[in-house]
């Protein structure tokens, strides 16, 4: 049996997780305070994913940039492709929290949405 020690990154509690793996299968997760820790541990040892946050340029807005995030977590190896794809994006104000900024970013099947309201100048 293989044992892996991880730190749950889902919230700032940072629970220390112990994952027991047998024949490539997760058999037990311990150390988590809530269900998310369990889900995270199982994913992290098989297919690690992250939510990506960044900013994109705004035209005619009260602010010059708007903060955005991937609506769900995306595979770790797609992080750079995702941020690169956002570099050239410009959006027109007004922008509302939750607006889709880019659909299916870097072919992940996940949309990038705004996390802030920006009024028009």
């Amino acid at each position, binding site marked *: 049996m293989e044992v892996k020690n991880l730190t749950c990154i889902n919230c700032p*509690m940072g629970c*220390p997780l112990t994952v027991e793996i047998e024949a490539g299968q997760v058999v037990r997760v311990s150390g988590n305070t809530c269900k*998310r820790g369990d889900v995270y541990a199982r994913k992290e040892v098989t297919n690690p994913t*992250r939510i990506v946050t*960044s*900013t994109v340029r705004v035209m005619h807005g009260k602010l010059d940039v708007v*903060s955005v995030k991937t609506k769900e977590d995306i595979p770790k190896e797609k992080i750079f492709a995702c*941020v690169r794809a956002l570099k050239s994006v410009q959006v027109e104000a007004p922008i509302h929290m939750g607006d889709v900024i880019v659909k299916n970013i870097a072919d992940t099947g996940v949309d990038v949405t705004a996390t*802030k309201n920006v009024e028009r100048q």
Partner: protein
Amino acid sequence: MNKYDIVIIGGGPAGLAAAISAKKNGIDRVLILERDKELGGILNQCIHNGFGLHTFQEELTGPEYAERFISQVKELDIDYKLNTMVMEIDREKKVTAMNREDGLFDVQAKAVILAMGCRERARGALNIPGFRPAGIYSAGTAQRLVNMEGYMPGREVVILGSGDIGLIMARRMTLEGAKVKVAAELMPYSGGLKRNIVQCLDDYGIPLKLSHTVIDIKGKERVEGVTLAEVDGKGKPIPGTEEFYSCDTLLLSVGLIPENEISGNMGVEMNPVTSGPKVNESFETNIKGVFACGNVLHVHDLVDFVSQEAAAAGKNAAAYVKKEHTEDGAGREISLIPAEGVRYTVPSTVNAARMDEKLTVRFRVGNVYKNCYVSVYFGEERVIHRKRQVMAPGEMEEVNLSRAQILQYPNLENITVKVEEDETNGSKESDLH
């Protein structure tokens, strides 16, 4: 002069939650004064995710978390003034503030809630000899530049300190195309959260050098590089361990300090360990009717706790205004004493006559402890003994006290919170957590 029941200084998460709670507890005249151009405080520049999981069962970014509270403030029709800097508060709770429209003006409050948050420690606090070339930023300034103005301060970065803002900026600048070479931390442990070490440094292969510091900065006009060295147990550089890193940017992430000039000037008694006010179980300072919550009280890593604390402060301020507060002299003021590994507690005193059924006492430890116990003593008697796998200075801890239990000890004067290494005494135990 304008009159309000409760005036709240600062419109960050603490001020917002305090205002909402005061209003919901029956106070109509509530005013928030905020010096920035928008409500939300430091959350506006924290565009990363990880906020509010415990409050909303959803993982939000800073601006999203703030918006949930800002929209409530608007729905509840709570008054607020932006671009308004509070200059002074006197003991009679006259608040003096300034803005472009009104100039200098006074507001008379019945109760005041201090929610000014914290600022970053200045680089003057650091002992780096040499010139002061361009390219040295506090991590928070860099965060503001990148996240709010879309400006990248540099391409090759070294970070001094392992506070959370520095860690978050290591990732942010890496994603934006910079090369973050190393993070150096003077202490033998990280000042930031474990999750941030994992997802901001480890994920991108950025080394964290513990017990290291910057001993020299090269460059006259602009930073050209820094020299790191390992330090001994007393924080002194060890000769022969010097290593040079070329870089154009040095980020300082050496900690936060509560912003308490106004509180100090009005005579609020401070706790030298937290640099925040001393408060009782109601989050009230030594001045009656003056409350404090959020980062101005003690630096938090978790905004959920800020919101909880602030909601309690708002409720208690409302009770004070409505004169529901228990009369002076009722109950006993019991001191909470931090000992053996516990650096401070918030609150500093508790009075069972005023407390709710349950009181959460928050504290930080002064070192890394493994497989230890958090113990609470009522006088000489140990009443809580809770096992903790790991405790570190970077993470806030808590214990819960129960009113019913305190009332069983009518002559109690001191409650001591401490870290215990192992099972030593077999007195009565009860785990309240």
